[in-house]
């Protein structure tokens, strides 16, 4: 499951100097959800992916990619 989706969440969060807790607060999820998405352990729902992209000022396609 974890190999099915690559993500740039950690890089995008670092770009905005946000902590996991701050991003979690913006998206209204728990810090462990941000942590597991970043680590590729948890694949987010479409709604969560859209909320993450909006909070980070990017698009879902830039944030998440299928492996080539």
């Amino acid at each position, binding site marked *: 499951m974890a190999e099915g989706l690559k993500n740039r969440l950690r890089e995008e969060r670092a770009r905005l100097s946000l902590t996991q*807790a701050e991003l*979690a*607060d913006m998206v*209204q*999820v*728990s*810090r*462990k*959800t941000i*942590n*597991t998405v970043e*680590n590729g*352990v*948890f694949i*987010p*729902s479409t709604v*969560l992916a859209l909320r993450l992209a909006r909070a980070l000022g990017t698009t879902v396609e830039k944030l998440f990619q299928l492996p080539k």
Partner: protein
Amino acid sequence: MPLKSSVEIADRISRKRAMAGVAGALVFLVAQGVRLLVESGSIAPRRTLLDMWAINAIVLYALLATGGGLLNRREIRALVNDDVSRLHYKSAAVAGFWVAMTVAMGMYLLPNSAALTARDAVFVVVSPSIIVAIVVFSCLELRAHRDG
């Protein structure tokens, strides 16, 4: 002292819950040992000790089923039991189910199992399945909290 955000409060509760789950499973295991000692006659049988198993089982089952923290605000509960925790709950329930099925089928196939009472059978099936479900849930939660 600065006020903590909902995310920070939920994070703390979620960690505590995972650790409480492991501790609860250990207490439950000890309770099984006590019960076995009571039944083998090593110590005087006491009704309260026997009831400990049922109370422990119900508490652990309630923790797993509800996610705990019923006294917390709705917003906090939603954060504690978000998508990741619900996924962990499903994984734990599946693990518990397979343990219960395996133990139940094993008991059925054992030649002397017909001599067991219904209460004994419930004890043998429920105990390992609850322990496995709680430990799986707690380990997945603790892993989710781990950085990196």
